[in-house]
């Protein structure tokens, strides 16, 4: 499958465009945080006094949305989960992350902001946000000074590094399944959070005045249904894509190519395709499509197709129709097609003399006849097919066993 995302060009060669993207993404980040109310310390701190769980709800909704998005896009082969994960996240350092998290939580409730929200608070005119952000700047530099000064700190800083660890690997379940579990957990937590919120608001205010009751408010419960509903849909899509990747790549998915198309290519642009004949070696060495390689099915793995350049169209030929792309060919980086009807169809198409369609035939039919006559003459004029192209640059590891070579047999 061809991965589209991430766009590598944006990361390296088109750096300026990447920086424009940075400003745009940052704009969205700041805009949404402000609109969520995160430019205000009291709203954020309320999370820790349980009467306003907005921080928790926004954070987890965002995590679930982005998680499901990446999982679904990856499931359909549009994005590369592994590449994005390894590039966008840090490795797991058990103790530094545990201690760092506890400290950050403490700093959060003291300052009233986390580093990101202090930026948004500053942007909306809150001086306490500016001061908190200045504190963050100071803290990061102090930490760097500490790393330089104390070897014990830098030892701890780099301790218990487990590399990239993902929850789905840790639990040994497919990523989409874990994503579904996280989604369900989040939905459950949201409902719990709303209950807790109502309880503590009532406590705080001494009455339930002015409390937004989600159940009785059609608009708010609509928003919840909308969010939960789309999560359910996305999670189902992710699971569906899981099933899709586990079924073998079917003939229909890989696409087939007709004998006519192969014949035209063989005559006109033979460099554009690589034909692999998967029939038994004896049958293939006797007669085959010109330029094709005789590689019996069980030897296909030795070609190392996943590391082939992928610039050519790979055409796979069986005795008759192939039902699926063989596993050894699935990771070929280029396009793969299966010859429809297999070699038996090729034989009746290219190796038997065409019958003249008659004088009343349409132009297309006559054109077809001309082409097939040429093909027939070209192919049967040669007693044997030309030698196969040299094996791909795999260090000459692909050798024919028969003494006389594959073609002169």
């Amino acid at each position, binding site marked *: 499958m061809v991965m589209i995302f991430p766009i590598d060009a944006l990361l390296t060669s088109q750096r300026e465009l990447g920086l424009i993207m940075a400003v745009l993404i*940052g704009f969205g980040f700041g805009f949404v945080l402000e609109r969520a109310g995160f430019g205000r310390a009291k709203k954020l701190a309320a999370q820790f006094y349980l009467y306003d769980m907005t921080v928790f709800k926004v954070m987890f909704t965002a995590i679930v949305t982005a998680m499901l998005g990446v999982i679904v896009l990856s499931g359909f082969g549009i994005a590369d989960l592994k590449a994005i994960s390894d590039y966008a996240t840090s490795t797991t350092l058990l103790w530094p992350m545990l201690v760092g*998290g506890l400290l*950050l939580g403490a700093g959060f409730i003291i300052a009233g902001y986390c580093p990101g929200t202090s930026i948004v608070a500053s942007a909306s005119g809150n001086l306490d946000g500016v001061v908190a952000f200045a504190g963050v700047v100071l803290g990061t530099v102090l930490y760097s000074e500490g790393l330089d000064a104390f070897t014990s700190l830098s030892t701890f800083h780099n301790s218990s590094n487990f590399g990239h660890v993902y929850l789905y690997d840790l639990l040994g379940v497919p990523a989409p399944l874990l994503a579904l579990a996280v989604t369900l957990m989040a939905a459950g937590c949201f409902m719990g959070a709303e209950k807790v919120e109502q309880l503590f608001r009532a406590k705080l205010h001494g009455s339930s005045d002015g409390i937004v009751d989600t159940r009785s408010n059609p608009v708010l419960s609509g928003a919840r249904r909308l969010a939960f509903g789309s999560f359910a849909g996305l999670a189902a899509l992710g699971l569906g894509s899981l099933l899709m990747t586990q079924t073998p790549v079917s003939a229909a998915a890989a696409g087939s190519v007709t004998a006519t198309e192969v014949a035209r290519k063989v005559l006109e642009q033979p460099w554009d395709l690589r034909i692999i004949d998967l029939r038994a070696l004896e049958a293939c060495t006797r007669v085959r499509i010109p330029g094709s390689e005789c590689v019996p099915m069980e030897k296909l793995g030795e070609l190392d197709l996943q590391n082939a350049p992928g610039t050519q169209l790979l055409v796979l030929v069986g005795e008759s129709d192939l039902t699926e792309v063989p596993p050894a060919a699935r990771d070929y980086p280029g396009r793969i097609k299966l010859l429809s009807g297999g070699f038996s169809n090729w034989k009746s198409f290219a190796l038997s003399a065409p019958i003249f369609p008659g004088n009343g035939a349409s132009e297309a039919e006559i054109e077809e006849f001309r082409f097939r006559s040429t093909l027939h003459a070209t192919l049967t004029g040669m007693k044997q097919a030309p030698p196969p192209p040299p094996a791909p640059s795999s260090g000459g590891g692909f050798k024919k066993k028969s003494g006389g070579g594959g073609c002169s047999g």
Partner: protein
Amino acid sequence: MEDAEPGNRSASERLFPHLGVMGMKDSEKFWHPYVAGVALGLVLLSSLVLMSKGLGASGAAHRLGVAALNSVASSHVDASAAMSGFKADGASPLDDWLIFEVLGALLGGWVAAYSAGRLKLGIQKGPNVSTKKRLVLALTGGIIMGIAARLARGCTSGQALTGGAMLSAGSWLFMFSVFAGGYALAKLTRRQWL
């Protein structure tokens, strides 16, 4: 035409108060948490999918700090193993994706606050705390968070949000630790907020 139900008339307005309009009626109106969450998730998703990068804040703060220190004590930064990397090969510590992202966040936050009628100089604090004390606490908390974010390789944006969405084990540990740390200290700081 049917009579528009007054309760439903402003449904979209109530989900997205002030979206696109300069409504100045109620500056306390924020987006519904789930709507804001989905929007934030989509911003994060586009960053991940298009750029293979997450959202971040503390990384930019560090670069800003190194740049500031570099302008007054350049040789000190050169001698620092932890900071000299940011100016290797004559590069500026500020020449980085995260810095541009944070500039965008400043702009986005400003536009959002302005268009919602919330842009106004002030200090957010609880009723029982003095301005001076509030600012000292903000600075203290900021410093602690700066240290914490360096130790944890990210803050709530880079580690919890981004790593959380990518299901990184360390990020989830970090996230639970943040909530644990906050709740553990909440009793002590109660007077500041309530």
